[in-house]
């Protein structure tokens, strides 16, 4: 069963963001990693790249398919989770602990467009 962690915000394309001050940690939800199956590669942007809310910033590859990563917010990439380069399967082990990129938010009001855990769980149940 997929976990829906409280305290995070979620997008309809199954990314989460954990907000800490002016920064956000973005990853894929536990629901998403279940749906993908074995993750074998994570295509990540570079530090200093700009990301835009609603636009693709990378991809997660399972054995069978590639799935685009869509940024829930706009901003600048300040860190990428380099551990995923060697161990992409960390996303299967604990999707919430293993964020993919850390972003400096350029427009925090974009967070208002995202779902809380309850709303996201309901969204997944109706998917």
């Amino acid at each position: 069963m997929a976990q829906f962690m409280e305290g995070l915000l979620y997008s309809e394309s199954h990314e989460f963001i954990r907000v800490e001050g002016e920064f956000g940690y973005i990853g894929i939800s536990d629901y998403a990693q279940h749906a993908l199956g074995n993750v074998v590669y994570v295509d990540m942007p570079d530090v200093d790249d700009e990301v835009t809310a609603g636009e693709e910033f990378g991809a997660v590859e399972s054995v069978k398919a590639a799935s685009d990563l869509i940024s829930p917010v706009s901003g600048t990439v300040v860190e990428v989770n380099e551990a995923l380069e060697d161990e992409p399967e960390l996303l299967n082990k604990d999707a919430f602990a293993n964020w993919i990129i850390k972003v400096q938010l350029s427009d925090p009001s974009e967070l208002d467009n995202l779902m809380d855990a309850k709303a996201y769980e309901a969204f997944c149940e109706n998917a």
Partner: protein
Amino acid sequence: MEKKTCLYDRHVALGALMSPFGGFIMPIQYSNITDEHNAVRQHCGVFDVSHMGEVRITGPDAERYVQHIFTNDVSGAPIGQIYYGMMLYPNGGTVDDLLVYKMGENDFFLVINAANIDKDVAWMKEHTAGFDINLNHQSDYYGQLAVQGPEAEAVVEEVLGISCSELKFYTAKVVGDIIISRTGYTGEDGFEIYGSHEFTQKSWDKLIESGRCKPCGLGCRDTLRFEVGLPLYGDELSADISPVMAGLSMFCKLDKPEFIGKEALVEQKANGVPQKLVGIELADKAIPRHGYAVLNNDGEVVGEVTTGYHCLSVDKSVCMALVKTEFAKLDTPLQVQIRKKVFPGVVVKKKFYDKHYKK
């Protein structure tokens, strides 16, 4: 609306991820693709391949007819011998790739791809003029199981009680109303068993209950066949891709008096083909997928990926690709466009893992 095989309810009960394939709703994976892949490489796995099509050709002209529509040469074959080959359009493009079982004198059993059943049967019927044959389409009668892996022989003998150790690679025999052959699509030793739906259901249950055979979905069937360089119709073969382009000339016997498409292949062998199928190994782990562009070092598009994976048995990202012939030589540097980035690679043999057949 997709068709269901006779094992559909069992797949759902096992919690399989079900997805449309070739006009059927088929199990893609039960647990995960990697575990199922490794089970076949190391032990034993069972696949529901009941979606495959079957056609029986009998009658006084059956052999002459098969020789006409099929690229390989079945003349003089012993009963029980199996041949891999293609049916071709006159221009050399591929109608389908298939197995032909010689079941008796002027009695052949043809196994065709699920996605091509309607097209193939129509093609066969279009070319019966002048041949005294019976064409019996049996896809709705037969279920099919593929038991694959180094332990397959022991599992088939001990769990299903069917003796098969005497069967040589690419031979078949009839046991009661079933057909069993030492064939498969995984690069491992293994057997394919054709029987009624009732037989297929009972055999599946025995295999699963024995615990000696992991249920395996089409996901790992594709990774297994890919890494030993076996083609899939729709990826490495198509109406636009001839067996010469795909490097499968050895299954096209140009010394046969005639078969549909022969003249085109003779011309292709003599004058060369514009594109060839190659293997490409990437330096990075990013995964090339079907349809991604292949570039030369100047960044010009020179081909397209047909199948690609992060190859499970050798831990490398590799693909098969159809490229302009001038770039098909081994060790040629090529690049693959994967989303926004371009990844360097090199042409290698299109077999990324050695087959382990028992011959």
